[in-house]
């Protein structure tokens, strides 16, 4: 709650709205006990007194009634009606929306078409029709305003409910024996409540305005009762001669609606989880670089990551996602990077081309050298030219990396044309050739498919084709087969293997699967808590793992053909990288750990090509 208020008041405009609204609400609540004149007492002798007349601070109206008194009583009534209308509309509309969204199918269809019909009428016409049928009066105006706003809530809440109703916890509730009514009330409602509050906070102002509109037309509050709309309506004839009678209620309406809208926007921003996590702050084009310490000298590798440090600065916390990683690949070589989630393997890969989102990502040390040239801190244009041209990426989920609204051929052509000046026709020919290279059958017709028309394996082939489009020197593949079926995975892996042998591609292959590494990679680096704990030729590391983590990780993965057995699990959880223990990060889970493991930094040591970061290694390397 305090966090919510803090967020709310960080938005200055929302804070201003909140203050103005609180003052108005306080005044309105105190109205009955304030020493005001009777708002309905007429004194025709004193009609149209100017503001600041003694006894009448805001003057009087055409019947000589005190404007201040009428204003406060009128505001009280208008606010009460507007807020009640909002509550009624929100309750009925949300109920309709939840029922339609939860049950779906025909129920949804019938309800939502009814709502659509209601929406097809201009709201004022609908409200007029309702009031005409029920007769004028404030109560009927309230009903009319509530009714015309029901569709807004119904549609909004239905959308949210549909996405929630497909979630697994709803199924779980059904399996726990809950009925529909209970699921709606205890499972769905708490989850849609924030949306209802947001929708309400942004519409209350609008509803106050609509009520005032109806009263202005003489369909709402009836004389002598004052509300803001009727005050305006009565003052209309004296607009030119005595403008203060219109300006006073008009100003009040303006203040109320403005403050409610400012506050409502603030509430929405503070409650929306996407906005709360800072999604609105636009990431920079390249990762922020704040390098401390010395920059390592150039090496003769094709791509060399040298003592890279990448951190995430979230509030006061610093997550050391990558804490000093050095990797290198030569042409035609495949390097496997293996690790569990949170080990920093993906962040390492994204740091190469400055693709880590900033904020919150910051590269704080080391270098990434492509053919000797340092890419960390390189200008955006240099990076942009190399991204996809010299160093290309393949990501895990091809459905989220391909644009759903463009044909795959157009996306391939765009990848080529952003680096090479060739005609669209040539680009298309090249795209077809690429699709053939990744062995997509009927490439000529498949090129005009949209991503959703292809299977997962086909889409990943398009992803690979796109990575190959400019004949890069290095491909960084981040779990490219994890989302695929095993038979498709086997095809994709053999495709990548052929490509690197034919074209001399260097591949950095990130995965959590030892079987994949064993089949594809020449060398492997094992990462844990943002650092490399072991590296060496794949066969040597897998046959004789030197780090206890590597050994136990291999042991806890079941292998096909091993038969039924107890698996050697590693107890505990990987550490969170904002609070790493001193010394070895694996020590808390390691049964070989001694006091000196927890004392200080442990170097990555060994005779090339093997190295291990452990004081009591399983094997001497």
């Amino acid at each position, binding site marked *: 709650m305090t966090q919510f208020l803090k967020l709310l008041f960080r938005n200055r405009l929302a804070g201003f709205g909140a203050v103005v609204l609180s003052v108005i609400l306080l005044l309105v609540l105190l109205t009955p006990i304030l020493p005001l004149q009777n708002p309905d007492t007429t004194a025709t002798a004193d009609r149209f007194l100017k503001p600041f007349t003694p006894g009448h601070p805001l003057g009087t109206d055409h019947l000589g009634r005190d404007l201040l008194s009428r204003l406060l009583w009128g505001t009280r009534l208008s606010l009460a009606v507007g807020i009640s209308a909002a509550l009624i509309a929100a309750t009925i509309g949300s109920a309709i929306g939840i029922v339609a969204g939860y049950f779906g199918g025909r129920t949804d269809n019938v309800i939502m078409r009814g709502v659509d019909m209601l929406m097809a009428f201009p709201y004022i016409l609908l409200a007029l029709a309702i009031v005409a049928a029920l007769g004028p009066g404030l109560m009927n105006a309230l009903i009319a305003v509530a009714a015309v706003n029901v569709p807004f809530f119904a549609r909004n809440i239905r959308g949210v409910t549909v996405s929630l109703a497909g979630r697994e916890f709803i*199924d779980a509730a059904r399996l726990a024996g809950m009925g529909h009514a209970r699921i709606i009330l205890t499972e769905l409602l708490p989850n849609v409540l924030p949306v209802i509050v947001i929708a309400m906070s942004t519409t209350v102002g609008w509803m106050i305005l609509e009520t005032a509109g109806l009263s202005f037309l003489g369909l709402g509050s009836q004389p002598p009762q004052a509300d803001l709309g009727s005050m305006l309506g009565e003052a209309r004839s004296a607009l030119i001669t005595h403008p203060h009678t219109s300006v006073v209620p008009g100003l009040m309406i303006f203040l109320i609606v403005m403050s409610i809208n400012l506050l409502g926007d603030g509430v929405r921003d503070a409650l929306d989880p996407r906005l709360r996590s800072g999604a609105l702050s636009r990431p920079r084009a390249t990762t922020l670089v704040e390098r401390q310490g010395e920059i390592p000298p150039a090496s003769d590798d094709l791509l060399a990551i040298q003592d890279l440090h990448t951190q995430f600065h979230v509030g006061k916390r610093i997550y050391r996602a990558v804490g000093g990683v050095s990797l290198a690949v030569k042409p035609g070589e495949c390097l496997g990077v293996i690790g569990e989630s949170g080990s920093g393997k993906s962040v390492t890969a994204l740091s190469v081309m400055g693709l880590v989102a900033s904020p919150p990502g910051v590269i704080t040390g080391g270098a990434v050298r492509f053919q000797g040239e340092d890419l960390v801190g390189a200008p955006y244009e240099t990076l942009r030219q190399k991204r996809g041209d010299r160093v290309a990426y393949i990501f895990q989920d091809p459905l989220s990396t391909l644009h759903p609204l463009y044909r795959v051929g157009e996306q391939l052509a765009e990848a080529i044309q952003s680096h090479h000046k060739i005609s669209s026709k040539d680009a298309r020919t090249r795209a077809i050739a690429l699709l053939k290279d990744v062995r997509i059958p009927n490439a000529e017709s498949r090129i005009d498919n949209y991503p959703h028309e292809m299977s997962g394996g086909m889409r990943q082939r398009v992803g690979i084709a796109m990575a190959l489009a400019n004949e890069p020197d290095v491909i960084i593949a981040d779990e490219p087969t994890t989302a695929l079926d095993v038979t498709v995975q086997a095809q994709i892996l*053999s495709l990548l*293997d052929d490509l690197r042998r034919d074209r001399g591609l260097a591949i950095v292959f990130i995965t959590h699967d030892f079987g*994949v590494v064993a089949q594809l990679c020449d060398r492997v680096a094992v990462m844990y808590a943002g650092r490399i704990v072991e590296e060496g030729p794949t066969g040597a590391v897998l046959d004789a793992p030197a780090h206890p983590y590597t050994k136990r990780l291999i042991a*806890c993965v079941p292998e096909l053909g091993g038969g039924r057995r107890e698996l050697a699990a590693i107890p505990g959880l990987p550490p969170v990288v904002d609070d790493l223990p001193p010394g070895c990060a694996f020590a808390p889970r390691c049964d070989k750990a001694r006091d000196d493991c927890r004392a200080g930094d442990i170097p990555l040591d060994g005779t090339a090509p093997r190295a291990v970061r452990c004081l009591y290694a399983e094997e001497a390397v």
Partner: protein
Amino acid sequence: MPALKVENLAKTFPLKKPLFGAARDGVRAVRPMSFEVAEGETLGVVGESGCGKSTLARMLVGLLEPSEGHIEIAGKALDNADPAAFGKLIQYVFQDPNSSLNPRKSIRQIIEAPLKRLYRMNRAERAARISEVFASVNLRDEFLDRYPHEFSGGQAQRIGIARALAANPRIIVLDEPVSALDVSVQAQVLNLLADLRAQFGLTYLFITHDLAVVEAVSDRIVVLYFGAVVELGRAERIFAAPRHPYTSLLAQSAPVVGRALTAPEQKDSELPDPLNPPPGCAFAGRCPRATDLCRATDPPLEQMGEDQFAACHHPLED
């Protein structure tokens, strides 16, 4: 008496009738299939995406009404889709532990639900039962008043298992229970499941796409392809000596340390289209052994060898 008996169970999802022309046939997500699971047994169900394994699981726990066929649990027929009737006998553990826990409820409220609704327990009975269940999945009681977002994937999956256990079912359907977890945590959860089975005499239906995992935990394994059972056999035999070419393809595709990388099938093979299913064997288009017979008639599931069944006109030899 088998713990679970399924007879000719099938599910067809109807397609929308087009504005003009006749209604099309629905998508046959699960073709008529029959199998039995013995008391205390773990039956592995393995297949690739779109093979109907999740549809099967949802029918078995009553979340989806079968189009045809019968489900019998401990001799009691349960054909209607009413999770409450199924709940005491069969429970479900979801794939994604985080999405299966309501983010706005405390862990206690989540685990209490089946006790309240299915067993109508009072507060004291519920507290005792929850402590018991929580102890058996190795979670501390202090977690009960926290909310789902505070837990890691492995812990959340334990909570999901605890919720299923709380209903005291005879059978648990585990739908990819470890595929969202890291490998080091995956082994913890698999071992926990094995302990629970021994402790409570549970029967498992373990659905996964991971051959190594299913082999490590199952007694028998069913291989599904395109909504139908293509092979059924003992876990230690089925991948070592497959009879159906598809099972063999699966076994050869799984990445194994120490095996050279080869693409086990032709590069241009296409998966069958569910909207326009092929007439004969669904695997014929990808099968190196396919003949005209395969493309014309669908092979039935037949016994081959001691306790292995396969649906193939030209099965592989031992």
